[in-house]
């Protein structure tokens, strides 16, 4: 797609035009002030060039009025930049509720993608057009960065926690994917392609080819294989907290600290269980670090998200026709249950293990310590 020389990259997502409009505003301010100062500089320099050795120049010390004007005007321009930028930023950071979730794993010098129905891809990501796609990203080694210039999307891929970003592709075609955070020798070769297809073509592609277990199904298998259910199921007296409906909600830890149970907290609780124990439980859960790979942890979390609020483990669930715009019903796939698009209301940027609010917070009363 090497059209003629272009100043702006192709606008292939809903965000692209909003970022470009903001950029045009700032470009206008930059050009205006740069040209204005250059012109005034040249005019003054030429008009007041030295005529003779005995020039006497007026002793002008300054004018407070002028100083105020060229403080207030830039302040005004800058405030507009800030609010407009913040508005676009918050839409870039928080994905719409009905987005299709794709798990992304960055590894030194390659990208691994995992679709909701389990289809895996290396360095290439097929996505449907006209539908928001939310990426839940983690790195297995160093910091990488998921950057698609055509979508104006960029988010670091951190080891040790999940970062999410999203895009809503509006034009079919192939777009560059760059790793944008220096990650070692082949940093410049850690590139990939995002292939945006018509929704129908996407479904055909999704159904075709080898298909693996959906992450939720893999999660369920792992859940039993590693005997998580011995503690996390059964009645109220189970030794571990019941996991149904936990993702996205607040959880009270020992010591009265309240934390949002986002993906990073779930991941942390699998790999670092004793770090932040839920109130009323003992830190007896063994760590699974080294036993579960990054993908397996993602599958477990996908499975936990499918557990229904009613506590019963319903396993597979019919797809909720989540997004109003997305109409095409996926064909019944013989192998695994139809994936469920977990709609976590206003899912947040899952980020580093959130700092539990300071125990002296007025809100939470100090509960008696119940550590061993």
């Amino acid at each position: 797609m090497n059209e003629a020389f272009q100043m702006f990259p192709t606008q292939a997502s809903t965000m692209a035009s909003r970022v470009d409009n903001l950029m045009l505003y700032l470009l206008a301010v930059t050009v205006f002030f740069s040209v204005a100062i250059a012109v005034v500089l040249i005019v003054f320099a030429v008009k007041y060039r030295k005529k003779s050795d005995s020039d006497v120049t007026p002793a002008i010390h300054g004018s407070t009025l002028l100083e105020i004007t060229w403080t207030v005007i830039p302040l005004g321009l800058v405030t507009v930049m800030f609010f407009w930028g913040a508005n676009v930023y918050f839409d870039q950071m928080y994905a719409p509720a009905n987005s299709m979730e794709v798990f992304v794993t960055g590894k030194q010098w390659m990208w691994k993608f995992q679709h909701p129905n389990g289809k895996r891809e290396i360095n290439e990501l097929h996505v449907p057009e006209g539908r928001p796609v939310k990426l839940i990203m983690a790195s297995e080694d160093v910091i990488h960065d998921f950057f698609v210039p055509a979508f104006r999307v960029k988010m670091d891929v951190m080891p040790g926690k999940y970062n999410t970003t999203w895009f809503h592709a509006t034009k079919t075609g192939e777009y560059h994917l760059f790793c944008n955070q220096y990650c070692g020798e082949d940093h410049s070769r850690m590139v990939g392609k995002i292939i945006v297809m018509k929704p129908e073509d996407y479904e055909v592609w999704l159904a075709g080819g080898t298909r693996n277990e959906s992450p939720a199904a893999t999660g369920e298998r792992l859940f039993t294989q590693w005997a998580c259910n011995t503690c996390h199921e059964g009645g109220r007296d189970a030794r571990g907290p019941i996991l149904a409906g936990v993702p996205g909600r607040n959880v009270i830890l020992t010591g009265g600290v309240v934390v949002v149970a986002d993906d990073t907290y779930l991941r942390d609780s699998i790999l670092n269980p004793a770090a932040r124990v839920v109130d009323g439980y003992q830190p007896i859960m063994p760590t699974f670090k080294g036993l579960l790979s990054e993908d397996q942890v993602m599958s477990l979390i996908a499975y936990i998200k499918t557990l229904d609020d009613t506590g019963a483990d319903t396993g597979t669930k019919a797809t909720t026709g989540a997004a109003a715009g997305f109409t095409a019903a996926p064909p019944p796939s013989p192998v695994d249950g139809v994936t469920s698009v977990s709609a976590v209301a206003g899912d947040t940027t899952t980020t580093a293990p959130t700092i539990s609010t300071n125990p002296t917070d007025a809100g939470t009363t100090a509960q008696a310590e119940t550590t061993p």
Partner: protein
Amino acid sequence: MSHPERANPYVSHQFETATQQREASILGMWIFLATEIMFFGGLFLAYTIYYNMYTDAFKEASQHLDVMLGGINTGVLITSSLTMAMAVWAAQTSRQKLLVLFLSLTLVLAFVFLGVKAVEYMHKFHDGLVPGALFTYDSPRRDQVQLFFFIYFVMTGLHGVHILIGIGVIAAILVMAIKGKFHAQYNNPVDVTGLYWHFVDVIWIFLFPLLYLIGRYLPGAH
């Protein structure tokens, strides 16, 4: 061209008067201490962030520090701060013998502090609490305890290095004091060394409660 003669032989060529020289050296030391505040500040930041993230692990790790040795060390350092202050007083009032005595006392106390610190480090070494390959401690919160001990060793290690530097400087001042160089008209070096030593004491005053005394009230804590 001879630069103006100096009435006071103890004022360097770039200063006009003794007061200007004294105030310059004190201001210089305080600015250096500002850099030290920011230097240790980075570590206090790391401590604050991780204490709030992993409070329970930090409390559990803090059990393994010996409060008795820590308390003794605090006492030793506070006493050395007193002897250093007395040394400054002795220099300001031209009491040379007392100056030498107090400086020597401060040196001795500094060595005692390092000795106790070495004993503590040996205990950690035996208990397998040194972070990295030698970390053999095991509990559900093993990783965060290792994080605590990493912060503990960097903070107390850096503080120990500052004690060593202090010992070097005080020893130099002691030698010059024995030669009778300091008296009421000229005692800036003693004053400035005193400032540095008190600062090292202030850092320990914060390190002791933050590292040694968190979570001691927990039942079963020794």
